[in-house]
């Protein structure tokens, strides 16, 4: 991809992502906020593609757009009185100052740091190396097993919490 196309795509994606994230906060209707959140998830998948992370972009679409947003929308449907939005709390000025200070500190730190950038080009396709890392011998096999146990216990915990007595 030529440099200028890459930059334009990045700035477009970044603008849509920030606008969608603001929409999640600003929109009063919770359902519209959820739709804005789905737009944010898809834009983030596009940003992963810009970062040469093709497998993660697809996983982002599958898990976030496919599963998590459906869960959130089901939650909105089942808690019906949530449809009319409540006003922001009184601490919004403090929270705004904290958020702006956070952006300022991180931006200052990032701009003034000379990162050691690698000169090797990124991998063309990452599915096979990621599979080898996750399930290969010098890799993250134990972590994958623990993640499976975590998901199972989350399912059991959710069922136990939600069950009618």
């Amino acid at each position, binding site marked *: 991809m030529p440099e200028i196309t890459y*930059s334009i795509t990045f700035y477009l994606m*970044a603008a849509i*992502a920030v606008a969608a994230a603001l929409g999640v906060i600003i929109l009063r209707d919770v359902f519209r906020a959820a739709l804005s959140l789905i737009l944010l998830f898809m834009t983030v998948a596009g940003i992963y593609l810009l970062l040469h992370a093709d497998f993660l972009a697809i996983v982002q679409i599958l898990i976030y757009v496919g599963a998590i947003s459906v869960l959130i929308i089901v*939650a909105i449907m089942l808690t019906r009185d*949530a449809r009319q939005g*409540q006003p*922001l*709390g009184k601490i919004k000025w403090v929270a705004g100052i904290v958020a702006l200070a956070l952006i300022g500190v991180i931006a200052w730190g990032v701009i003034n740091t000379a990162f050691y950038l690698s000169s090797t080009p*990124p991998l063309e396709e990452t599915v096979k190396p990621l599979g080898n890392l996750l399930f290969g011998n010098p890799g993250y096999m134990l972590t994958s097993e623990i993640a499976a146990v975590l998901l199972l216990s989350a399912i059991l915990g959710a069922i136990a919490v939600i069950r009618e007595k």
Partner: protein
Amino acid sequence: MLTVGLTHFLILSAILFAIGLFGVITQRNVIKVIMCLEIMLNAVNIALIAFSQSVAPVSLTGQIFAIFVMVVAAAEVAVGIAIIFSIYRNHESIDMEKFNILKW
């Protein structure tokens, strides 16, 4: 300015994280708080993958981290929404101000 590099992705990630943090603090609807948590997790994932691509592009450690962040996010949403349902059934409300049953 025009050549997009690691700095741009990190600043985008910081902006999204700050928006999510603002939402988590100020929103009163619990479902919106969970949505803002998801925004924060996505911002962290962007930072991880940007570092992975420009600092260690072959070892892919950042992408592995991002995968496990997604796993934890999925588990967190499932348990969080179950807790919201359970409280909604008992209190008929999902307002953050009413969630004070752990106080004494």
